[in-house]
């Protein structure tokens, strides 16, 4: 077992429990122990776009300090911290970059970091679970597959935060392949589509449901037109806007067929044969299980 520091994020403990459950199960299967620190706080959600943003870096940098404390305590084997939520990944990674490259802001962040016994050194590497898998090797993932997802056509939906800005993204900003590679290792068929990197509408979902419904309609329809039967995502907000928000899409666009959206880790758990608790499909709307049963990938 390799022990890696793990930052869950608030949503993974509430609305996206299925993301966490499926991840922890697949990681264990791959010989990775994800170690959650006792103390952590909100990642900071959304990297500030203003230049006067020192306060917005306190939350992410404090989390990075918690990860460093885990390493100092000998509880993990690496300087990496694994994230799942694309938003948390993006926020933590960008703050880490600011901290390590901008000495002026680093000083201000440290000056306002109340009540910490030690200072953050900057020596933590923020990675996404997809990167952990790629680093480990797709052949290793393939070895863990007991039930290949043969015949399942899946559109990888990247959204914004996994890829942008350049330098923060986990893969090529314009032509990413990391999710396609994963799908191939799982035995599924990756379906490319033009809207795979289009924004889902993000927080507009709170007060401008219309905007999100239109974006979701385009994204989902384009994927379906290319032959996709479901989509995968790495972001709880994308999952919400593309999944449960399909009820809003249906209101606005009467000619629309619903299509399941799941976390990539749920398909991993399915292919690894880890059972219901690990796949956690009960947490998804619309329900992906009828399709998976139809495809012979899930027992009745």
């Amino acid at each position: 077992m390799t022990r890696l520091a793990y930052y869950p994020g608030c949503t993974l403990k509430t609305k996206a429990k299925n993301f966490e459950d499926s991840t922890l199960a697949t990681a264990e299967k791959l010989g990775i122990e994800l170690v959650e620190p006792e103390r952590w706080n909100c990642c900071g959600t959304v990297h500030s776009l203003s230049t006067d943003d020192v306060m917005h870096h306190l939350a992410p940098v404090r989390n990075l300090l918690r990860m460093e404390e885990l390493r100092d305590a000998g509880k993990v084997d690496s300087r990496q911290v694994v994230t799942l939520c694309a938003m948390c990944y993006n926020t933590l990674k960008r703050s880490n970059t600011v901290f390590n490259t901008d000495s002026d802001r680093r000083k201000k962040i440290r000056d306002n970091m109340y009540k910490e016994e030690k200072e953050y050194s900057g020596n933590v590497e923020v990675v996404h679970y997809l990167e952990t898998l790629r680093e480990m090797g797709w052949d290793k993932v393939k070895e863990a597959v007991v039930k290949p997802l043969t015949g399942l056509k899946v559109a990888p939906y990247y959204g914004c935060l996994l890829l942008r800005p350049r330098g923060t993204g986990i893969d090529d900003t314009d032509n990413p392949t990391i999710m396609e590679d994963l799908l191939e290792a799982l035995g599924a068929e990756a379906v490319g589509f033009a809207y795979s990197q289009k924004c889902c509408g993000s927080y507009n979902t709170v007060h401008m449901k219309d905007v999100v419904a239109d974006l979701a309609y385009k994204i989902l329809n384009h994927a379906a037109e290319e032959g996709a039967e479901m989509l995968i995502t790495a972001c709880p907000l994308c999952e919400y806007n593309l999944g449960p928000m399909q009820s809003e899409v249906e209101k606005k666009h009467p000619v629309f067929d619903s299509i399941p959206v799941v976390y990539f880790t749920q398909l991993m758990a399915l292919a690894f044969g880890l059972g219901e608790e690990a796949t956690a499909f009960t947490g998804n709307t619309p329900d992906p299980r009828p399709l998976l049963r139809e495809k012979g990938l899930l027992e009745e």
Partner: protein
Amino acid sequence: MENNAEYVTIYVMGKKHEVPGDLTIMKAMEYAGHQFTRGAGCRGGFCGACATIYRKKGSYKLEGALACQKIVEDGMYIAQIPFSPAEKTTYELDELRPDANTMLEYYPELSRCLACNTCTKACPQDIMVMDYVQASLRGDIEQAAKLSFDCISCGLCAVRCPAEIVPYNVGQLARRLYAKYIDGPSQHVLDRVEEVEEGKYDEEITRLMKASKEELSELYNNREIDLK
């Protein structure tokens, strides 16, 4: 008043006083002639009525303390915060669910927390205030309840929070949710309630209610104190 301690200089709302250096802020203020009509309660560090902020001469740090607990230091500039204006929402505990949505519904400003930890720095009880605010935000009601358990609602966290959260009310909601939905009723409390209802203590209560002030003083001063 006789006192062998060395005298120190404190400033109460800007006015200079020489006071014995071994007094608490509260006693020092009384020594200097102040009479507390607000901002004093149990005098034992339990009630949270005597929240006080101070700066020491030559320091930029604004610090918080309970006046009845903190011993004066030379050069302290002291101001009391006997009341902190705070939004306290009302709710029917029976109709709630112990999760993040409930916390956010009643205290939506929770989501403005920046994790700056100013609240923790301000807390005279050494509670990890920011950590329980964050636990509330992610629906970890048990953690929020346990971390906030020693809170005495003095209000210092609330007046210092840049996100204008009132942590002590958040903690109180979390503890109520924890008690009702997660921890559940304690058997010893249920047993005691039954005893009360059966009238086990009626005789004793009646005796106390009829007792004279002298008898009550006698009983109080010689009471059994269970330190366990």
